[in-house]
């Protein structure tokens, strides 16, 4: 049973078709990257997946429990929305406890979970400060922690690292890796291919509301990345070769001796996207 099953879903805003017949299965325990440029339809898809928006057509099934528009079905899902969803005037601790109360956690459970998550998000020493005094990165971490109060099995993170300093970004990566270690299913939405490459078991490439490709990073690069660049430096100078099979070509180049240094540059997801759409991921 997949954690999230999206079938041929469509959503238009007026004349604009934001999601155009998208199908996708998220398997239990995997980290699925949802990679696409701004405006690709990622947030719209997430919103439909958790029942905030009704699709114009298609079907969504959450963990076999049914449609996410049923409030009870959403109980096992945690979402960190792209737009920060915390109360600026409340402290970090108050924010977490309030969101816990919405899920019917007992007062003891709220306290325990809030303590754990403040620690997890590296906010323990700022727990009593109002969220409005936080940096962008701290707010993002709190936004993520707030999605986890009720210990959801499926976690959807919509651009969790956007507008964040490098230190917080690393902290967020570590949080995601820890969650994966606990066996949670994670959908990680981003337009940064480095993040998808580093964190995700599989990546769904999406553009203009359509799913263009789906697979592990290696599979995607193998299928759509194009050739690797093999560079060999000798005393006489550098030699570069575009290669479909870098190992074989490198071995061939090495035969002529006097090699000082070799470099193999594999294509990235950036190249995958470029090859699939003719455009760059960065706009």
């Amino acid at each position, binding site marked *: 049973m997949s954690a999230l099953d999206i079938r041929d879903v469509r959503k238009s805003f007026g004349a604009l078709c934001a999601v155009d017949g998208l199908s996708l299965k998220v398997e239990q325990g995997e980290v699925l990257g949802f990679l696409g440029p701004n405006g690709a339809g990622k947030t719209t898809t997430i919103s439909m997946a*958790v029942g905030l928006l*009704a699709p114009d057509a298609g079907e969504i099934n959450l963990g076999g429990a049914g449609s996410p528009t049923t*409030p009870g079905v959403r109980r096992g899902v945690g979402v960190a929305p792209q737009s920060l*969803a915390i109360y600026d005037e*409340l402290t970090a601790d108050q924010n977490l406890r*309030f*969101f816990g*109360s919405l899920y*019917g956690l007992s007062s003891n459970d709220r306290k325990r979970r809030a303590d754990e998550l403040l620690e997890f998000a590296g906010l323990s020493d700022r727990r009593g400060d109002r969220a409005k005094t936080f940096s962008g990165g701290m707010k993002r971490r709190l936004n993520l922690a*707030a999605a986890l109060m009720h210990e959801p099995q499926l976690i959807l993170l919509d651009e969790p690292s956007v507008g964040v300093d490098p230190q917080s970004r690393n902290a967020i990566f570590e949080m995601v890796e820890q969650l994966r270690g606990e066996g949670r299913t994670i959908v990680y939405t981003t337009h940064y291919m480095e993040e998808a490459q580093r964190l995700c078991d599989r990546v769904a490439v999406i553009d203009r509301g359509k799913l263009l490709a789906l697979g592990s990073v290696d599979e995607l690069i193998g299928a759509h990345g194009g050739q690797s660049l093999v560079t060999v430096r000798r005393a006489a100078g550098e030699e570069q070769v575009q290669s479909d099979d870098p190992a074989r070509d490198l071995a061939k180049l090495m035969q002529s001796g006097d090699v000082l240094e070799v470099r193999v540059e594999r294509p990235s997801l950036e190249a995958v996207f470029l090859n699939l759409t003719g455009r760059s991921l960065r706009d």
Partner: protein
Amino acid sequence: MKAVVSMAMKDLRLLLMDKGGLFFIFFFPLMYAIFFGYISAAMSGGGGGDGPVASIRVAIVDEDGTEASQEFVALLEDAEELNIERFDSRDAAKAVVQEGKRAAMIVVPAGFGERGQSFFIGDPPTVQVAADPSRTAEKGMLQGILMKYGAQRMQSSFTDTKAMRDNAAQAMQTLNDDADTPPMVRLALQGFLGSLSQLADQLDEANVTEEDIQNSDAGAGFEPLKVESIPLLESNDGDGPEMSPFAISFPQGIIWGIMGAAAGFGISLVTERTHGTMIRLRLAPVTQGQILGGKALACFVTTIAVAVTLLVIGRLAFGVTPQSPLLLAVAIVCVAACFVGVMMLLSVIGRTEASASGIGWAALVVMAMVGGGMIPLMFIEKIPFLAMLSSVSPVKWSILAIEGAVWRGFTPGQMLLPCVVLLGVGAGAFALGATIFCRTERA
């Protein structure tokens, strides 16, 4: 219910952190109540002043039923300063004043006609006035107007020389019948009344007109009419020092506080939307009804807190003593419920906090304006269109309900109408607001 309570607690906590919001909900209304209390205390001390002349709506009861009293009532009915409605009984007239529909009631008590037979013997003819204590300016004007017509009535008797002679003869008769009058007084009055008959003869000869007498100071030494203040209610002295001006300014202050709370929570629903927290509320396993219920509960609690705070301060520091604490509690609950509905409607009229706040406050200020929260109702009610608006303004009914319990001495029956209107307006506004809310937030 637990979710509703946690959401309400969260909102109350947010309010406590919001200094500006607290100012508008608690401090500003208190300042308003104290400031206008002092202002109106100062104004009523210095007499009504000469404000714009509006015709005063009064109820009149003729308990005398003599020719003289009927003539006097007719004279008042013709007076352009007054808008008179006759009532058959004192109680009926009292009720319309209590309910704020008329500024005052005039009673022409039994004996008016008899006393009016003589201007010089015994007590002068008396009318009684019971005024709405919140309308001191009108009360002052009304007393002046009554004295004017009383004097006019006496003067017309003077120019009517036959009436004067009859008057003198009648007085002489009364005097002769009355054995208790001390002999010296009797003698003096007999001389005076005799000379009055002579005066009548001389006036006839000189052909003096009514104008001449009005322009002279004739009659200045007499009291042509006595205007007696009577309490509107049995339990207090009506217009006496007991009726604190703060009893009028505090209910208005409470309304401003409640409007502040309605605006604040209305805007906070918009803020939930613009700041993204609405998404989290909707993601949680709570219904839209619970989300709105949480807001409504927080608004309701704040509204009650405002009312209680102001009433306690009014009671302890400014001598505002409610006549019926029980009815006051009922009134406050109805007012709170009404403004929870208004809050709900305010929350859906703006897309951004700025527009919600702007439109919301504009709507509230209009409600307050036509409802008598700023300008006295007497001016509003002169314009039929505004009078109509005023009768649908929750502010008017809120003030009436609170005043009804604080000093108007409403019976439960009289409290019923304002409370039913408040609950009706509240329920209607809530239903409309909630419907629009659910439509915009629907998946």
